């Protein structure tokens, strides 16, 4: 491994580096999917890997998502560690049966005899001007399925370490890549391991309100936290990283300090990930809460066309509005529709 510390790379580059390092350190690792070979993937996450590791380890498959995941399951049963790519969020749906009925359940069905260390990489979310079916936030389809781990990095550093840890993990991992952050640069340290594949981290400390976010929305949330500071609110920002399992300890500890919470995600609010967080916080932190947990998310609509997506995606203003609505002043009348 040619570990260089403090290298500035894009999130996509960090993923590429993680795959390369995993391929060179563990011969059981295979990388395959649609266009991941010669082309290097439509987002270039697998760029150069076939050249470096050969067709047998990094290869293009026929076009068939169920086929990709189904064969990955068979390979994992036979001792390999497949890392497969779904080209886009909504194009992973043909593989849904293989993921939910087999990948997620085989350990359980066989009382632990069959272990499936498979990683499914899924570029997800919007914000890149993609036409329909290219922008879904599909996380809760997976988080609702017991047996899967679901993680999503928001920074290049996390992209590297989380992917390495996902590949090493004995459980199947759905690895959601926020595609609108693919080109953002940051430093990575390949020698570093995170606090754990299932741990959330506090990205910014603050004492007034906890903003909880992940993936593509994290950057927006951090911007909002900065803007909130100008308005006099010191926001703490938690980056979930792991959506399943949910790191309640880290989130609850923060909310108990601040007494207020806003969850921010791109996905629709109804039955969205924020609903689960709000429920868990009200179950475990009720007496610490000074206001209801609010959610900022996409509308309950199919992901809109590129020229309208800015109206759907949570932005800094919407997050600030939510912070404003956190009942800072008990004597103030309730805003419309909030009773």
């Amino acid at each position: 491994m040619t570990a260089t510390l403090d290298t500035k790379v894009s999130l996509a580059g960090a993923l590429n580096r993680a795959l390369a390092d995993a391929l060179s350190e563990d011969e059981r690792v295979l990388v395959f999917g649609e266009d991941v070979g010669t082309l290097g993937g439509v987002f270039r996450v697998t760029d150069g890997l076939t050249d470096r590791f050969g067709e047998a380890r990094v290869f293009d498959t026929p076009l068939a998502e169920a086929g990709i995941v189904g064969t990955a399951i068979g390979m994992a049963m036979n001792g390999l560690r497949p890392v497969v790519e779904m080209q886009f969020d909504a194009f992973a749906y043909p593989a849904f049966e293989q993921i939910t009925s087999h990948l997620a359940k085989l350990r359980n069905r066989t009382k632990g005899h069959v272990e499936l260390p498979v990683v499914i990489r899924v570029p997800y979310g919007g914000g890149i001007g993609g036409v329909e079916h290219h922008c879904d936030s599909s996380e809760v389809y997976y988080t609702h399925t017991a047996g899967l781990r679901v993680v999503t990095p928001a920074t290049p550093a996390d992209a590297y370490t989380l992917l390495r840890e996902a590949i090493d993990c004995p459980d199947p991992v759905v690895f959601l890549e926020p595609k609108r952050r693919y080109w953002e640069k940051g430093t990575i340290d390949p020698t570093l391991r995170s606090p754990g594949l299932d741990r959330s981290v506090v990205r910014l400390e603050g004492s007034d309100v906890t903003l909880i976010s992940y993936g593509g929305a994290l950057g927006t949330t951090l911007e909002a936290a900065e803007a909130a500071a100008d308005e006099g609110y010191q926001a703490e920002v938690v980056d979930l990283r792991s959506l399943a399992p949910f790191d309640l300890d880290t989130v609850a500890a923060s909310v108990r300090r601040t007494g207020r919470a806003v969850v921010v995600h791109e996905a629709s609010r109804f039955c969205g990930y924020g609903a689960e967080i709000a429920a868990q916080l009200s179950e475990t932190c009720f007496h610490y809460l000074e206001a209801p947990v609010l959610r900022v998310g996409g509308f309950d609509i199919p992901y809109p066309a590129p020229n309208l997506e800015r109206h759907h995606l949570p932005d800094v203003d919407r997050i600030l509005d939510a912070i404003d609505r956190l009942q800072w002043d008990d004597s103030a009348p309730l805003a419309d529709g909030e009773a």
Partner: protein
Amino acid sequence: MTTTERTAASHFLPSEEPLGLVSPDGKRVEQPGLPMPADEVLLRLHSGMVAGRRFDTQATALTKQGRLAVYPSARGQEACEIGAVLALRPQDWLFPTYRDSMAIVARGVDPIEVLTLLRGDWHCGYDPYRANVAPQCTPLATNTLHAVGFAHAARVKGEDTVSLVLLGDGATSEGDTHEALNFAAVWKAPVVFLVQNNGYAISVPLAKQTAAPSLAYKGVGYGMPSVLVDGNDAAAVHAATEQAVARAAAGEGPTLIEAITYRIESHTNADDATRYRERAEVEEWLERDPIARLKQYLTDRGLLTEQAQQEIDVRAEADAASLRERMNIDTVLDPAELFQHVYAEPTAALRTQAAELAAELEER
């Protein structure tokens, strides 16, 4: 490479008529290119089918006694179940469906472990790595892809392992079958697909399932050699499977075998087959019983004596009695296990939930 090498389609075509080696009345049939298994193999096929049928009737009886939640019988399909499994080498893997309990028992898995699923105690009761048998697969056709991936991995690792995947006629309409045939052919994976065409997918007859000349033709479009055999002829199923296994092991890729057979019982004990098929049709197929015909052939040739048959029957009866006895013992299930095999290590939430359930049970 931009195009595949062209091979004449005829190379992949199945025969017009199902290949057979023993006729329904027990006579030898010459079949160029399909060698008759050795006498000793035929005897094993025979005793295997007798044991298989006895297991099957025992399981059906246990269902009636409420000892099994459900049982999909393979009665009438013994030639496929036993013929195919006995053609596997020890290192090969079987990828069965819900219908193939008999095949799994023939592969050497303890019948009581096989029936764990249908008894309702746990989803899969055996360790797949002990007899190289994947868990019985209920979502149709999904096991075809696991078989392909498994076989491909064996090649990547330089191991000589062939996957045999069993599927029904209905399952050939599922998308996963299409994807698996294609992946297997493109990768030249060492896989044998055995379609047991038993005429029905629950109530839906083959005519409503496909317009293909035969299901074996489905291999041709993928560039896969395809074989059509008489699925009630254990010798033919064994010979065809053995050839396909040998071809796969030699690096020549997958084979699709369609075996024409018939499901004598209802889809499961919960089904009523009289709603969609005539008794006369069942009678007709009873005339083509796979066990009677091989027995006739072996007896005529002096290979199976009255005494040998008796010994086979006694052994099958003893196995059934042992199964019955063991199935009549109530199992003790540990609810704590519900939380133990979801992830490699239980998550914090699962530990909490396990404690909740434990407290609840304590109170009662």
